[in-house]
């Protein structure tokens, strides 16, 4: 065993006040061996975590703000050695990261500078260049934070209303950016080539391949492009419903009836590009959301794995140090008080539930089943009415605007009434408050997303509903829907516009008058109504609903993301103004750390739900033969097998091999094995953590009961760890603090 030694200036030296001598600190060598005698006071045991074999320490070694060097070898018995070794260790960290007073930091800095004097020129240059690189990077990072959209607005909201509401606005900002990127994607790969070729820029020409083996009757498509003199209000009507002049623009699928674009000598396969751009934006969205939610997931996992952290988290990390506004501070005090009281109540409730007798349990379970049946009945009622209304609206679509907007109105009504009913019913189900909130939210999410699904389902039943030979020639109902993708696109467009109108209308006609009424009118009834609270979850579900529509609709209407971007952009300012002027913050604030993750999970659910209708349209329903880039294929998906068949044979075989069962089944099996391995690893870690926890208590109580025990430090197992100044009076000076090591070992394990 080689004895390693060095001294580390104690970060907690300041705890004892100035003038304390920095103590010797045992170092963990890379071999992780040997114990060193140490003096009473210790340093915060942070640095040696680098040496522990865990992903946390690997990450810290790679990144982080602390520069790390391999442990210095050498003994440090004498003061002189200690000083030299101390400066060696000090040189590792920038002076500002030492938790000491300013004067001591300057002394450290001088040490570091003196230290560099005797280094070779190459090392000196390396050190200065790495320092200046770090400085430059941090400057760039600081500057780039200015480029973040709405930085100042969100900060001021955070300061005034807390982090819960701020998370809603950051979520909104994320959606604006996401939609903008999706728009750029679709525009540059689909719309731009079309426009370029239509106007003949860059010597581009369009290639139309006439459809073969298809009944002529399927290719008849005459969108009324508002020719001749029309009333002005028709333009407005068209703008709101996507028909008329809008139908023939690049907004909808029908415009892209092009098979290939020739730019100079290169050919651009538009159908393939259209399909691939669709897959690309779906993949991009899912990857981005997963990346954002991983952070919150890790915290949630730790939180759930160790459910005993909640009180500590609230007490020690509860106060938001950014608050400067007195009313925000009052709100925070109240919210912390409320949270702690709720937690205590939940404890009491859990105890009460555990003590329930059989009879009580039976009664409550039957009540819950009954209420769930009611909920299902309500949902079925909603779905059925949406179905009927959609069918009715599709059959009488040319009557007037109201009929066209009927599905949107019914959906909005259902989205509004549903949550109210659920919030009312859940009170009878006798759950703990936290679970109540979760269940109500889940039900609301389900209602909103399922409504879109039902709308699409009813549309498809119309399009592909072949009652009596209606779709024999073409595979779909060509009489009513010669270009069915444009129709679906129009429905999505109408949903989006209506959603936007409703949000604006609610802000204008419900929030502001309510505030005026409550402020100036002192009737009991009005005061009981009170100020509107900013319900974060409701607002978030609203924008997730809009985003799901956008994802589904972009395939049928490539410019829809641009409309979504503008819509969310305007909504940001509207909500901000409404918040500042009318709302009083919710009495039940959700903790930001968990709510961010919740929003992203629901968004991900929305995205996954969007995959289903899109997958169905692309792969199962025959594409319309009268319009669109997929006229010459049976379904939109067929572009890809067709393209693959044009590849060289070797590549073809590889691709077909990947898609075959011979590859998929072993791949799936391997994935399962990896998953089981990881789960087993996590369980093993957990068991180690438990054991270490018990050992910790055991060792400490052992120590306390045996003050006069001889020192066994050299015979101890070869593990090294520092102890703490705070433990001075409980630890013998020369004994390593095993509990501390255990503490940090299981910290790194978990």
């Amino acid at each position: 065993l080689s004895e390693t030694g060095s001294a580390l200036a104690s970060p907690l030296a300041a705890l004892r006040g100035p003038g304390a001598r920095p103590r010797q600190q045992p170092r963990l060598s890379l071999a992780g061996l040997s114990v060193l005698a140490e003096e009473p006071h210790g340093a915060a045991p942070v640095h040696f975590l680098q040496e522990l074999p865990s992903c946390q320490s690997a990450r810290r070694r790679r990144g982080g703000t602390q520069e790390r060097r391999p442990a210095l070898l050498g003994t440090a018995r004498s003061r002189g050695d200690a000083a030299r070794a101390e400066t060696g260790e000090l040189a590792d960290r920038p002076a500002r990261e030492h938790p000491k007073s300013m004067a001591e930091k300057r002394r450290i800095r001088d040490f570091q500078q003196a230290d560099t004097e005797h280094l070779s020129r190459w090392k000196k240059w390396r050190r200065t260049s790495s320092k200046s690189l770090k400085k430059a990077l941090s400057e760039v990072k600081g500057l780039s934070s200015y480029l973040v959209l709405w930085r100042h607005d969100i900060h001021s909201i955070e300061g005034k209303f807390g982090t819960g509401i701020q998370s809603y606005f950051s979520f909104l900002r994320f959606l604006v950016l996401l939609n903008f990127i999706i728009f750029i994607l679709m525009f540059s790969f689909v719309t731009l080539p079309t426009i370029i070729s239509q106007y003949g820029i860059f010597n581009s020409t369009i290639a139309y391949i006439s459809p073969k083996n298809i009944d002529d009757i399927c290719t008849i498509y005459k969108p009324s492009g508002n020719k001749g003199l029309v009333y002005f209000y028709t333009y407005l009507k068209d703008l709101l419903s996507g028909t008329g002049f809008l139908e023939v623009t690049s907004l909808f699928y029908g415009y892209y009836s092009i098979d290939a674009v020739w730019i100079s000598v290169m050919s651009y396969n538009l159908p393939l590009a259209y399909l691939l751009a669709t897959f690309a934006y779906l993949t991009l969205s899912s990857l981005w959301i997963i990346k954002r939610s991983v952070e919150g997931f890790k915290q949630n996992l730790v939180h759930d794995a160790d459910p005993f952290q909640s009180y500590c988290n609230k007490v020690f990390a509860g106060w938001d140090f950014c608050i400067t506004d007195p009313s925000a501070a009052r709100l925070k005090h109240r919210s912390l008080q409320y949270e702690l009281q709720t937690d205590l109540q939940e404890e009491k409730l859990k105890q009460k539930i555990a003590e329930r007798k059989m009879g009580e349990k039976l009664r409550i379970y039957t009540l819950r089943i009954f209420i769930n049946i009611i909920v299902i009945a309500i949902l079925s009622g909603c779905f059925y009415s949406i179905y009927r209304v959609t069918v009715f609206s599709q059959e009488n679509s040319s009557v007037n605007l109201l009929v066209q907007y009927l599905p949107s109105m019914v959906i909005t009504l259902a989205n509004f009434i549903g949550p109210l009913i659920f919030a009312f019913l859940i009170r009878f189900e006798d759950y703990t408050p936290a679970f109540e909130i979760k269940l109500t939210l889940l039900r609301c999410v389900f209602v909103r997303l399922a409504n879109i699904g039902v709308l699409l389902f009813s549309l498809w039943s119309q399009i592909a509903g072949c009652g009596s030979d209606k779709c024999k020639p073409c595979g779909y109902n060509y009489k009513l829907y010669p270009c069915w993708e444009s129709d679906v696109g129009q429905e999505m467009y109408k949903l989006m516009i209506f959603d936007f109108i409703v949000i604006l209308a609610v802000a204008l006609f419900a929030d502001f008058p309510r505030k005026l009424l409550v402020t100036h009118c002192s009737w009991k009834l009005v005061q009981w109504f009170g100020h509107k609270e900013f319900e974060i979850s409701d607002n978030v579900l609203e924008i997730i609903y809009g985003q799901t529509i956008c994802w589904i609709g972009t395939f049928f209407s490539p410019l829809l993301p641009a409309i979504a971007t503008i819509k969310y952009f305007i909504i940001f300012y509207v909500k901000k103004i409404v918040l500042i002027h009318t709302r009083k913050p919710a009495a039940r604030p959700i903790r930001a750390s968990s709510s961010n993750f919740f929003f992203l999970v629901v968004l991900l659910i929305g995205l996954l739900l969007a995959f289903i209708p899109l997958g169905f349209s692309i792969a199962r329903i025959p594409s319309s033969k009268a319009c669109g880039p997929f006229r010459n294929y049976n379904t939109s998906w067929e572009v890809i097998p067709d393209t693959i068949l044009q590849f060289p044979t070797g590549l073809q075989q590889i691709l077909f091999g990947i898609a075959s069962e011979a590859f998929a089944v072993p791949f799936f099996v391997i994935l399962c094995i990896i998953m089981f391995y990881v789960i087993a690893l996590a369980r093993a870690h957990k068991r180690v953590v438990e054991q270490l926890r018990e050992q910790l208590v055991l060792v400490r109580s052992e120590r306390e009961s045996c003050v006069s025990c001889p020192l066994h430090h050299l015979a101890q197992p070869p593990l090294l760890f520092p102890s703490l100044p705070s433990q001075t009076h409980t630890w013998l000076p020369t004994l390593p603090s095993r509990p501390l090591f255990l503490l940090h070992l299981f910290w790194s394990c978990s």
Partner: protein
Amino acid sequence: MPSEQAGFFVKRKISHKIQLYNVYSSTYSLLRDQNTLLHGRYHEMAPNVVPMDYTKDPDVKLPMQLIINMPELKENPFKERIVESFSEDGEGSLSFNDFVDMFSVLSEMAPRELKAIYAFKIYDFNTDNFICKADLEKTLNKLTREELTAEEITLVCEKVIEEADMDGDGKLGFADFENMISKAPDFLRYYF
């Protein structure tokens, strides 16, 4: 100037203004731009006492009363403890060095370990290097402005110690605290 710096405590604004790098690389004859703002704030709290010129390294300390009236600290229930933890004499008077120190630790550039060390000092009201039940009770009272009943406070303190105390001594040492705070998802978010 106050209105510009009204958001001083706001997360990112402070980050590139506190560049202690420059504090150390300067020869102290000229304060760098990044510290001018801090020095300006320090000076305006007591213009008659704080000199504009720090070349002679004057020994000027501002009392706690002035510091805790700063807009960034005014609403913080732990303001006295924060100032006390950073003052060299332990009584709460901050020299300019301590002042810069305080803002640098509370900025978002400071590493988590550093913040954890100072957070421990702040919550340790009786400075015995342990967070005992009495400290926890004081913390809770400050957090909730004494709105909780005595029974609730006792319950919460018991729960906190139960959750965080690893070595079973009934109070939180720094190791327990650091272990617990490393798992607290809101720590870095809220504690600047």
